[in-house]
């Protein structure tokens, strides 16, 4: 092991623990520690501060080497965003927050309650639509989620609405029938709207561990993901797994949920993310 000016086995070990405890995952942690060791060997890092800066720089680089972190818009007609993810991560609430932010920009928004399965799901989104000033389209209890997406897009076109946010039921990526159901919703949107869905965002819980890797792989097999919403970033979870996801899938974090209120949504800031890991 390399020992340089206060850079020793203990510094690397404490760095490794920092990354592991922030849920970077074993693979990404080892790659990052190797990277920093290499910088030290080449004389680019001479002390603890240099070590942290070298690491911060590399993490920011990895997070930037992804698809765009902007939200795409339709060239004409309604813009449609499809929101997906496993159970309980924050899909419905994130949609409410995004709707509120779009409303602040003067856009008209329609919320499509395509979770026709879970108790109280449609009512939950209906209440949010009311609170944020968005239109609402729901479906029959246990009805076809794809039909709700279909109806919502028709309604948006008829009423000249700018953005449609499609809420879907939470689903574990290991349940094949549920992933096929999601593919059907996606297919209906693609057929109804040129270029749609303009974003397909997977919501991840900031306290998630390395299972996020399995989630993204499976969801990506089913639909074309364009970005991540990192919800519950106000928790003690750092969501470090997004670095491994950037490396493996080039998937950018586009939005960050920071609370349970409709205003609690921010754009992703890689620098703030890195600072959060080291505080």
């Amino acid at each position, binding site marked *: 092991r390399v020992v340089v000016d206060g850079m020793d086995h203990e510094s690397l070990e404490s760095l490794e623990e920092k990354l592991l405890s922030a849920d970077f995952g074993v693979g990404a942690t080892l790659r990052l520690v190797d990277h920093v060791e290499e910088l030290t060997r080449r004389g680019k890092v001479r002390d603890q501060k240099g070590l942290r800066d070298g690491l911060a720089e590399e993490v920011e680089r990895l997070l930037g080497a992804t698809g765009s972190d902007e939200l795409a818009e339709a060239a004409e007609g309604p813009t449609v965003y499809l929101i997906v993810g496993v159970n309980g991560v924050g899909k419905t609430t994130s949609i409410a927050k995004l709707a509120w932010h779009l409303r602040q920009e003067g856009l008209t928004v329609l919320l499509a309650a395509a979770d026709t399965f879970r108790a109280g799901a449609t009512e939950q989104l209906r209440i949010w639509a009311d609170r944020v000033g968005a239109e609402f389209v729901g479906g029959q209890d246990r009805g076809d989620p794809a039909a709700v997406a279909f109806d919502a897009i028709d309604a948006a076109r008829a009423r000249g609405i700018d953005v449609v946010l499609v809420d879907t039921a939470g689903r574990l990526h290991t349940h094949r029938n549920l992933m096929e159901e999601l593919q059907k919703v996606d297919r209906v949107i693609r057929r109804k709207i040129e270029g749609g869905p303009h974003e397909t965002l997977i919501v991840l819980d900031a*306290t*998630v*561990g390395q299972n996020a890797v399995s989630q993204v792989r499976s969801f990506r097999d089913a639909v074309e993901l364009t970005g991540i919403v990192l919800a519950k970033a106000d*928790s003690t979870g750092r969501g470090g797994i997004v670095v491994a996801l950037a490396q493996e899938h080039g998937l950018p974090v586009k939005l960050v949920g920071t609370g349970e209120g409709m205003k609690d949504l921010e754009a992703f800031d890689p620098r703030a993310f890195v600072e959060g890991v080291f505080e």
Partner: protein
Amino acid sequence: ELSEKLDAALGKFRQRGVLTEPMVKEGLREIRRILLEADVHFKVTRDFLNRVQEQALGEDVLKSVSPGQQIVKIVHDELAALLGEERAGIAWASKPPTVILVVGLQGSGKTTTAAKLARRFVRDGRQPMLAACDLQRPAAVDQLVTLAKRIKVPVHSGETGGDPVATAQEALAQAEEQNRNVLIVDTAGRLQIDEPLMEELRKLKSALAPQEILLVADAMTGQEAVRIAQGFDDALEITGVALTKMDGDARGGAALSIRGVTGRPIKFVGTGEGVDDLDLADPERLAGRILQ
């Protein structure tokens, strides 16, 4: 498979007889990676492996078993022993109703688990009642009321924006009045670092004097499982854990982290979205899943 992997790693230790120190250390390095990949907390992993090392060193390698298999067996048995507990059922009250308080982070599965518990008790011939005390999340009351109707269990609810403690006290009075022998109280999800909301839970505990305080935790939780469990345990003294969404492919290292740091038993495992999808925790299966 794990013991083959380990045998490959230990290939250079050709001697038969005793598990030597270098052999054990090499094997445990491999196991450490497996545990970390299963989301077990890095400190819990370290403490666990130190104990296993003590146990493994000097052990006689069984004639029929390879050193790799031997180490895996020691690790698996130690893990299952750690996760297990003799009396991990519900602590029934001598004078009904037994009160069960369901707590945890946002979205972990509390409302669904509360309904599953009620359903389980109905099937066991008991008379449960549900209390919808999440008066904050939109349609949370609606969600539990719908589930309660589905399983034909009476539910007492408050109004969104109301006082959860008052609602819980009303529910308790109703349960006693209606001779319900177990009351399951659903609460709003909250962060363990949210002081006012943790204080609200302490108030609920002192108003209800529950026999069980179940922490509902998501099986896919990463390293934070330690801080989350510690936070809820320090505030309330939880009595057990329900690990949800185990029908996915999360390895569930959170189970070891939570058990390791609070000493509380994993009592239940959620295995789906349906009201029947609740199993008693099986330490052998939890251990096997973590080590796969």
